[in-house]
C-alpha cells in the first residue's frame, strides 16, 4: 500500500519539473547571494561579528530603520485602507486618475522621490517654510525618514486591500444593518474580519519595502549618526570604507530580524485564514 501511495499520480502533472525549476531559480536568485552574505560575515569571527552588529551607532540605526518602517507601515495601513475604500466604494469624477496616482511611488526612481520630498520639506521648501515656525522639522530628521517611507509604502496596502474590498458586496453591510447592527458594529464585526488578512499582507509588504529602502531616505534624512541614519546607509558606508565583512555582518543582522518579523506576520495570516476553515 505504501508504494502505491508513493506512485500515485496527481491529476495536475509536472510537479517534479516545476519544483525542480523553482528550487534552482530561488537558489540562483535568492539563496546563493544570501548565503554569500552569511559566509562573508563569518570572516569576522563570532566576537568581531557581535561587536560590529551591537555597536551603538549600528543599534541606533536599527531602532530608526525598524521603528520608522513599522510606523510608516502602520500609518499606510490606516490611510491605504481609506484610499482603497474610496476607490472601490464611490464613483466620482477623477477616480481613475487617483487610482493611477496610487501606483506612482512604485514607478518613480526612489532618488527622485527623495529629492522631491526634501525640496518640499526643507526649512525653505514649499511646506517646510510653514512647518518651521510651528516647530516641526521634517527634512533632515527621523520624521523625514518616516515621510519618505510612508510615500514608498502606500501602494502596497492600497493594492492588496482593493481587490478584497471589491469582493465584499454591499449586501453584507445591508444585511448587517437590517439585523440591527450599528455602523460601528458592521465595520468591526463584518468588514474588518474579512479585510484583515489582506491588510496584514499589505502591512508586511509595506514594512519589508520600507526596511530595504535607501534611495529616497538618504536625501531627506540628513544622515546624522545616532539620530537619522538608517541601517542600509550604514552598510553602504562600511562598503565605501572597504569593510566588506563589517557591511555583511550588519546586513546579516538586519536579514535575520526582518526574516523573523515577516515570519511572525505570515504566521498571523496563516492563523487568521485557518480559523475560518
Amino acid at each position, binding site marked *: 500500500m505504501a508504494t502505491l501511495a508513493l506512485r500515485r499520480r496527481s491529476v495536475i502533472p509536472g510537479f517534479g519539473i516545476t519544483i525542480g525549476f523553482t528550487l534552482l531559480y530561488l537558489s540562483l536568485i535568492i539563496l546563493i547571494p544570501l548565503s554569500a552574505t552569511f559566509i562573508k560575515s563569518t570572516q569576522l569571527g563570532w566576537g568581531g561579528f557581535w561587536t560590529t552588529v551591537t555597536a551603538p551607532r549600528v543599534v541606533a540605526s536599527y531602532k530608526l530603520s525598524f521603528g520608522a518602517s513599522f510606523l510608516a507601515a502602520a500609518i499606510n495601513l490606516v490611510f491605504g485602507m481609506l484610499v482603497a475604500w474610496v476607490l472601490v466604494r464611490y464613483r466620482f469624477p477623477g477616480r481613475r486618475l487617483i487610482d493611477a496616482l496610487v501606483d506612482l511611488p512604485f514607478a518613480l526612481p526612489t532618488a527622485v522621490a527623495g529629492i522631491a520630498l526634501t525640496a518640499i520639506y526643507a526649512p525653505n521648501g514649499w511646506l517646510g517654510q510653514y512647518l518651521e515656525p510651528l516647530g516641526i522639522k521634517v527634512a533632515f530628521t527621523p520624521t523625514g525618514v518616516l515621510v519618505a517611507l510612508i510615500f514608498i509604502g502606500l501602494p502596497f496596502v492600497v493594492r492588496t486591500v482593493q481587490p478584497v474590498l471589491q469582493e465584499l*458586496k454591499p*449586501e*453584507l453591510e*445591508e*444585511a*448587517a*444593518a*437590517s*439585523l*440591527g*447592527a*450599528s455602523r460601528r*458594529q458592521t465595520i468591526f*464585526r*463584518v468588514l474588518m*474580519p*474579512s479585510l484583515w488578512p489582506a491588510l496584514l499582507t499589505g502591512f508586511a509588504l509595506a514594512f519589508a519595502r520600507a526596511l530595504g529602502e535607501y534611495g529616497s531616505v538618504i536625501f531627506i534624512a540628513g544622515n546624522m549618526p545616532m539620530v537619522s541614519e538608517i541601517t542600509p546607509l550604514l552598510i553602504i558606508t562600511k562598503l565605501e570604507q572597504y569593510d566588506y565583512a563589517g557591511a555583511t555582518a550588519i546586513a546579516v543582522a538586519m536579514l535575520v530580524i526582518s526574516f523573523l518579523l515577516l515570519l511572525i506576520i505570515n504566521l498571523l495570516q496563516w492563523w487568521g485564514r485557518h480559523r*475560518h*476553515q
Partner: protein
Amino acid sequence: MSIIIENVNKHFSGFHALQDVNLTIPTGELVALLGPSGCGKTSLLRIIAGLEQPDSGSIRFNGEDTTRRHVRERGVGFVFQPYALFHHMTVFDNVAFGLTVRPRAERPSRGEIADRVHDLLKLVQLEFVADRYPSQLSGGQRQRIALARALAVEPKVLLLDEPFGALDANVRKDLRRWLRRLHDEIHVTSVFVTHDQEEAMEVSSRVVVMSKGRVEQVGTPDEVYGAPATEFVSRFLGSVNLFKGRIHDGWAHIGDVRAPLPHDADTQAGAAVAHLRPHEVSIADSPEGAIAAGCVRGILSIGPMVRIEIERDGEENGLVEVEMVRERYLRSPLALGQKVFIKPRNLRVFASGAG
C-alpha cells in the same frame, strides 16, 4: 403587521423605476411581487425594507409611517438573493448576529441566544451545520441559513429578494414548498420578489404583478391567472394565443365569435385583441362559433399532454398552440395537414393597445 404603500415614486438617474405605486399588504400574508426584470419589484422591496428611500410617497407599517426610519430600526428581516452570509463566522454566529449586536440592556443572555439559534436551526432543518462555515454549505442550505438569520431578530415583516434565484430546479421546488409550510407555521407578514410566475403562484397567497414601475394587478394566484386585468398580466402569466378583432356596438367581434368587452373599455368602436390559452382551445370540424380556421402543422406528444400546432388560414406565422390531455386527444386524433376550426372555451378580450 400590515404594510401600506402609498403613491411611491422612485427615479434612478432619469429612469422612472416606480410610478405612483399603491399597495396594501394585509397582516400575515405571503405576497409575491412578480414581474419581468426591470419592472421595479426589487426597488419596491428595498424601499419597504428601508434600504432605499422613495422620492415621494410613504410606507406605513400597521398605520405608522416608517418612510424615513432607518433599516436598523424598521424591524424587517431581509433575505438577499446572493445570501450575503458572513463568511468568516460559523453558521451559529451568523444566525446569532442579530441578537449579539443588540445593546447590552436588550441583549439576551448567552444561553438564551444559544437556545434561540438552535430553535431556528431546527426550524430550517439544519441543526447539524451549526459549527460549519457558509463556504461548506450547499446553495439551498445557505439560503435557509440566511432565512434563519433574518428570523432571529423576530422581524415584524420578512422580505425576500429572489430567494430561490440562484438554485437549481429541484432544490428550488423543495424550498418553495418548504417556505410555504414555514409561513403557515410562523405567520409573519412576508413579501418576496420573483420573476418566475410558477414560483409566485405556488408559494404566495396573493400575487402583485408589476410591469414598468407600475402595479398591474393584485389578486390571488387564481384571480390573476383566471381573470387577468390587463393584457400584460394575461401574457406574463402563461402562454397565450392572440386573435385580432373589432369592437362594434358594445361587443368584440373576433372571427365568428361575439364576445363581451371588459367593463373599462371604449365600447363604441376600435380594435380588440382576444387572448386564448393553449388549454382553453377546442378543435372542431364545423365553422359555427369558431374564432379562426387553419390546418394542423404539428402534433407533439409531451408526457401526459399533447401539443398541437395549427397554422391559421391567411396569416403568416399565425401558429396557434393547443394543449390537451392525452386521453382527450386520443378520443379524436388529428392528422397532419387536416383542416380544423378553433373554438374558444374561455376567451378574454382586451381593447387593443391597452397593454
